[in-house]
């Protein structure tokens, strides 16, 4: 994961609340390996008609280049836990999401992959949209260390989970960080499973397969 300090780039508006992850990445694409990329499948059924032609009612189809920042409405990424939704958005070129709220699991998945989900109050999101509409092509810049976001003349701050911020700034893989706590995990695990042996599944009754 590359470290994030500042992100600048063109922004696009998606005027739609409750965009669920089925819309972001339809299930039929999810057998793809990560390396195959998910960018072409992002928002597939909202972008394209069934005959494969771009839909005239899809807001993002008017863009000539993929946005770096997507500004949208509440509960973005609700529904299924599919992490492929994050892959699709990132492979499409998006690095920052701005919304009044996000689906819970989606928000976590985004953070794990370095896609920055920024929660702003609804009125601030509206203000950004107004700026983008009045001056199309306005770039948005995000400064992670200072938690600042600028869009045209608007200059605001945002909240972010402390641990997530640290990880994104350092480009730190969470798994490596956790494994530094191996001793404490091992000590907890031993006590936890020994004091409550019932937590360990009863194995190998007749007719039941165990691991090879």
């Amino acid at each position, binding site marked *: 994961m590359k470290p994030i300090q500042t992100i600048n780039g063109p922004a696009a508006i998606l005027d739609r609340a409750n965009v669920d992850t089925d819309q972001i990445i339809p*299930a039929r694409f999810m*057998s793809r390996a990560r390396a195959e990329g998910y960018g072409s499948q992002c928002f597939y059924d909202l972008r394209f008609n069934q005959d494969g032609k771009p839909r005239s009612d899809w807001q993002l189809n008017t863009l000539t280049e993929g946005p770096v920042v997507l500004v949208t409405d509440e509960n973005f990424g609700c529904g*299924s836990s599919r992490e492929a939704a994050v892959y699709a958005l990132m492979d499409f070129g998006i690095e920052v999401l701005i919304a009044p709220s996000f689906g*819970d699991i989606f928000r976590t998945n985004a953070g794990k992959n370095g896609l920055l989900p920024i929660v702003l109050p609804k009125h601030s999101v509206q203000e950004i949209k107004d700026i983008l509409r009045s001056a199309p092509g306005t770039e948005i810049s995000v400064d992670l260390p200072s938690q600042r976001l600028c869009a045209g003349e608007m200059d605001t701050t945002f909240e972010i989970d402390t641990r997530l911020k640290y990880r994104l700034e350092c480009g730190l893989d969470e798994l490596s960080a956790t494994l530094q706590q191996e001793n404490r995990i091992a000590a907890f695990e031993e006590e936890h499973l020994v004091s409550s042996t019932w937590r360990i599944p009863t194995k190998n009754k007749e007719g039941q397969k165990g*691991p090879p």
Partner: protein
Amino acid sequence: MSEKVDVTEPRGTVAKIREAHRILSQDGSDLLYIDRHFLHEGSHHAFDRLREAGRSVRQPKLTFGVADHYVPTSPDRATEVTAKMIKRLDRNARDFGIDSFGIGDPRRGIVHVAMPEQGLSLPGTTIVCGDSHTATHGAFGAFAFGIGASEVAHVLATQTLWQTPTPIMRINVTGQLPAGTTAKDLAMTIIWRIGTDGATGHAVEYDGGAITALSMEERMTLCNMTIEMGARSGLIPPDDTTIDWLKGRPMAPQGAAWDTAVTEWRALRPDPGAVYDRELTLDAGEVAPMVTWGTSPEQVAPVNATVPAGADPDELSYMGLTPGVPLTGIPIDRAFIGSCTNGRLSDLRAAAGILEGRHVAVPLLVSPGSEDVAQQAEAEGIADIFRAAGAEWGASGCSLCVSMNGDLVAPGERCASTSNRNFRGRQGPGARTHLMSPQMVAAASITGQINDVRIIAQQTNAKGMS
């Protein structure tokens, strides 16, 4: 050394479980130990990561796999992709030493149906799976929630998960569910009341007489649908119903371990005076058979209502409906009974009670939640009732809930479904989904249109009504 919470303060069940699993805290995040990790075919991303990093699974004995999302309901709908995905899970399970229920394994079924059957979902445990409906296992008084692929890889490698502690919402349901309504209708009523972001960022804990009256299967349906309120998880504190259901299950504790477990489980009940971050109270007597009309679970209404006047024109255009149209009488093109929401024996039995002696007017696909459910349904004559009614009795799996296995609703087709999401295109591009209870789907499949099952049942003196 982790700072301990003051344990003299009264706590609810979620709080007790979280605290008992907290290894350490760092910058406002807790590192939780995970007692159960369930996997399905979607785990391929996580296993690829483990292979790339050269890591092994820390606790194979706490990890279980099952093929469900890609399993065809009929061999003639199998594809290269379905075969590939199922084989991939088998191979990953074999290579990493994990017990996984593949095709032909009598324990196989939809993950949130099969694992509880095996006695793997226990009170007081933390349970995760790369599927949002993992909340289902909260019915057993477990802290259970869905995670993404990165987190799946993390749990495989460390048996732990970082969690920002979420606020806890208590939903108290008083009174009694009226005849002809179900736990599914209760869940849909709550979503109608508070919306799909009504419990966002919260762990939900249920309480009240209407909750304790629910059977285990009904509790699983309710906890399953809790995710559609935006919640992280839904939990029902364990009681005698829970304990009686679990006793003797294949992988549940036995002997002295069972006795110890029961003692610890009873101590999980919320303490008197436990305080929650949010409270909601609902009277179960208000619940009616519910039907979704739009493309989100919150776009729902009682069956005798109409499509609301203020509905989004874009949604209505997709669904082919107009404001003011009564839900009763909307014609359907096909029907589906199954899914982790309503694919259990009691669900099939209730639907069969409506269908007995009748014939379907539209194609009805029934996918029992597991091999075990299928077997019991055969033994009880339920499968015969479905077949005699002209329904297709398919293999068990996620099937038309998410349409990854070759089952599809065609563009523009209207499907009455017992699943949990009516998102655009979920059952197939252009598919129009109407969510409802198993009995309601049965009634709709007989008449070829959405109908109040209570009226249909009276007309046929069906056995499905309590």
